[in-house]
């Protein structure tokens, strides 16, 4: 149980895919032009990540180390294609927004990374939790970057969220700055790099401060 909690913590914050492992930067830059896009991409990736982790963990004793990478790649590519078909068939309106990015999940190295680093060495349950934690960590990161870029770039928050989550969520679609002309830089890829860089610096600062606080309280344990 304690290990599962640790896995959750790792995924959400300590080993966050974007903010700590610096993986998945390609979809991060490409889709985070709005909070809704980030959220949708994050959730789709989470679904693939959990399923691929479970599959990889359940066949881990059958797979020879020599051919594991091609097997994982085939599995992940198949899963992503299935998600692509399913979205296109049942959530067609969302597919029109996210369709271009679904294929990007294949090249998301975080998924192969988790298959290789975690699922191929751990039980099915632990791998599912790891996939969920990493996925939610990614979703949080993408949504946060998306929201900041959307606010600065077009003055709205969660625009078109009802397309993703259903009409009930129209209430969270906010126009924060009415009549805002837009700040193009934030919508274009450089904006993504700027926001990501500032967030990374912020996370580092928080960690450094926490470490300093720990060192002041218990200098002996900080050395360990």
């Amino acid at each position, binding site marked *: 149980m304690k290990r599962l909690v640790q896995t959750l913590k790792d995924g959400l914050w300590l080993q966050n895919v974007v903010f700590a492992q610096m993986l998945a930067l390609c979809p991060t830059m490409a889709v985070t032009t709005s909070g809704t896009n980030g959220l949708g991409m994050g959730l789709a990736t989470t679904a693939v990540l959990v399923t691929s982790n479970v599959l990889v963990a359940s066949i881990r*004793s059958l797979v020879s180390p020599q*051919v594991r990478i091609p097997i994982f790649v*085939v599995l992940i590519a198949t899963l992503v294609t299935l998600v692509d078909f399913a979205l296109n068939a049942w959530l067609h309106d969302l597919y*029109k927004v996210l369709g271009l990015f679904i294929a990007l999940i294949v090249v998301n190295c975080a998924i192969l990374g988790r298959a290789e680093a975690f699922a191929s060495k751990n039980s099915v349950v632990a791998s599912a939790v790891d996939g969920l934690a990493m996925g939610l960590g990614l979703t949080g990161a993408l949504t946060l970057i998306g929201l900041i870029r959307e606010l600065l770039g077009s003055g709205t928050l969660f625009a078109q969220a009802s397309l993703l989550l259903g009409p009930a969520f129209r209430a969270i679609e906010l126009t924060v700055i009415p009549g805002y002309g837009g700040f*193009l830089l934030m919508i*274009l890829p450089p904006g993504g790099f700027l926001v990501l860089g500032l967030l990374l610096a912020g996370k580092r600062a928080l960690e450094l401060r926490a470490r300093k606080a720990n060192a002041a309280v218990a200098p002996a344990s900080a050395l360990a």
Partner: protein
Amino acid sequence: MKLAIAGLRDRLAYQGVSLGVIALVASAALAFAVSGTRERIAAAEARDLQASLSQVLPERFADNDLLADTLEIGNGDGSSRRVYLARRQGEVAAAIFQTSARGYSGDVLVLVGIDRAGVLLGARVLKHAETPGLGDKIDLAKSPWILSFNGLSLATLPAEKWAVKKDGGVFDQMAGATITPRAVVKAVKEALDFFAAHHTEILHGGKTP
């Protein structure tokens, strides 16, 4: 069981076979998914097409099924384009088809509706990859710019006026983006030329009178 597999895993044959089995299972799953979703996807795409077709026509303009009433007309270069016919009481009242021109990044795909007299009923950009915030104002969701084409025809606007204002024409260009509106104007003009060239063929629904 586990021990047996542990020994097998180092055999070359086992590795090859296991990779093959995985590939087989994956292809089976994909084949299953394709056949399971094909109808729904086709239906959704038909709905999309229907929706965009009716966007370039005035409301309740046609009384036929646009998707079923089509005509293939050659472009003269071996390719052909599909023309959707909007009929009223059996008579062709308007034609809808796609046209495209090279934009700032890739082709801009425009759908136009043209009535019997060659007057443009409407135009919509179906697909583009223009710069967000600059060139994407050709999209009706972002700006009403594309509506400025409504009601124009080759007869009311001379050929040299089919250009953005910067080039001596009548259409507004966008701040920071001239190439994109230029491409749309070119595409729409091309559509009207195409309609004029195939006028009789379209109005008779493909049948020679």
